[in-house]
């Protein structure tokens, strides 16, 4: 079920699960190429590479292109990072400049390094 969903929406950026650990399914919602969005994406990529190697799938959604998703996924603030899986859903808003807070938000700190 989980993997099929991932397959249905293959991540834009890299990310392949190793299989053993729980794979985080992340979505970053942005609205166009705004500075905040770019910073957020930069920060997120960095965090993922440093702390979540191979344990995540990232999907960047530009709401300017798919505005309907803003309603469907209850997005208000931009940028918003959503951890869809594992449940429950978690949302982190902001440019993700505070790595520790992002990790707490994603609930993955314990597995760092």
């Amino acid at each position, binding site marked *: 079920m989980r993997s099929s969903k991932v397959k249905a929406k293959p991540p834009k950026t890299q990310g392949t699960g190793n299989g053993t650990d729980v794979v985080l399914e992340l979505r970053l919602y942005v609205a166009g190429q705004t500075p905040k969005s770019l910073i957020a994406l930069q920060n997120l990529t960095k965090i993922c590479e440093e702390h979540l190697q191979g344990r995540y799938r990232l999907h960047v959604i530009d709401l300017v292109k798919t505005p309907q998703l803003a309603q469907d996924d209850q997005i208000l603030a931009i940028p918003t990072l959503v951890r869809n899986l594992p449940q429950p859903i978690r*949302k*982190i808003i902001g440019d993700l400049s505070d790595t520790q807070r992002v990790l707490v938000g994603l609930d993955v700190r314990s597995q760092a390094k």
Partner: protein
Amino acid sequence: MARASKRHKTATASHALPQLKKSPSGIAGFDEITGGGLPAGRPTIVCGGPGCGKTMFAMEFLIRGATEFGEPGVLMTFEETGEEMSRNVESLGFNLQSLADKKKLFLDYVRIEPSEIQETGEYDLEGLFVRLQNAVESVDAKRVVLDTVEAIFSGFGNSGMLRSEIRRLFRWLKDRGLTTVITAERGEGTLTRYGLEEYVSDCVVSLDHRVNDQISTRRMRIVKDRGSSHGTDEYPFLIDKKGFSVLPLSSIRLDHKVSKDRISSGIKDLDVMLEGRGFFKGSSILVSGTSGSGKSTVAAHFANETCRSGKRALYIAFEESSAQVTRNMRSVGINLAQYIQKGLLEFHAWRPSQHGLEMHLLRIHDLVDEFNPQVVIVDPITNLISANPNEVHAMLMRLLDFLKDRHMTATFTTLTANRGAEEQTEVGISSLTDTWILLRDLELNGERNRCLYVLKLRGMAHSNQIREFVLSRTGVHLLPAYIGSGTVYTGSARLAQEAREKAEALREQQQLEEKRKEFSVRRGVLESQIAALRSELSSGESEFARLTRQRSERQQRLALDREEMGKIRGVTSANEVVNS
């Protein structure tokens, strides 16, 4: 009244000027007090405490826009889900889902769950804008409702950012020419808890819900409506099964059409007092009197007469039930039940304390709308006076206005305090009504009698007489009061006086008869005397004639004798001798 007419004038005058365009809300009465509705293409804040009807106002604005004015709308709720919202307005007969299916409405529930959200670094609410834009574009919306947008304050921590985003949001809405209603919770000492009114400078509507003597009244005030003339008063409003309705307090425009047609009062003798033809059609009649003076009976007669002539009458009773009134009226020979069965008479009885004044007014409005009667009777209006007589006055003014506008003859009964200044009705509505019939008790010689007089009647030469008002098995009769030696006699005093009068008349009659007899005897005597005298006279006359005749015969004979003697003597010219 003066204010109302002034307002009306300025409203008409400003039509000529380039006035801010208005977007009709479709809310009954609201467009009237704002001169057309909400400012078109601008945001309006509707604020008030919990349960005051903000959301209902916004919803009706949106739905009426979509259904009646061809302006699709976007509903963005922050507190209730679309489903909940649909259910809320279902009771008003609106179906949000079907409107959404027809692309007349776009529903978006913005869920804010602070516990799910972690903040790291800078962000803005571009997502909200994206959603709004998407919504507006998908139905080509002209109207937007943001139901309690301030809920975002509870969801996000960065209030500085939120404020600037809200400012941007309002700007955004304005730039796109969207007529927006933003609801906001009332704050402590401020209009809204988060001071949203700072950002909206166009129109602020404040709703209020207060309880007075266990009766709740909702009120609305237009705090600000830039660029347009608006009523600044507090207007009562209601939310009922038909939605939101605002009742303008001062809508008397005094430009009703008037009728010259008459309508019988149902009491023949009363009609006689009214130039013999009854009340003016479409006028207002006040029947006042102390308790037990027969106000309801007068009203029932009127209802009876109206129905008898095939017209419809609406009877609103605040004291007695329908059954009680019909039973009581049967005792004076009025059968109201038959008209109720025929559907000509509609009876509605409810307790005055059952609702606030506005609800009463609205209920009467609704009944009038449904039944479309020619005559409306409210019996008695006095019972409505609860807390604030001013309000009752205003309410009755509105009711009268409403009925006059529809050419309905209104009859109100009102109770006046015993032995008080009866020329002052408590509610002071006597000045509003066209006709004022006063029922009065007169206590005299140990009994109490009812009197009726027409105190005021606009536009008619009415009787100034006080009539005795008698309730009998055959209905009401007005007896011409006995007026003698400067006093009005009623009841047994009148009867006594009448008896006295009769006795006196009889005595006079007898006296006259005697005099007549006496005279006829005298006449007989005199006449016989005259006859005697006459015969005496005639006998005298004949005697005289006889003597005259004798004398002339004698003279003739003398002449003849002389002639003879002359002949004998030979004298020829006898004639000369005779003549000399």
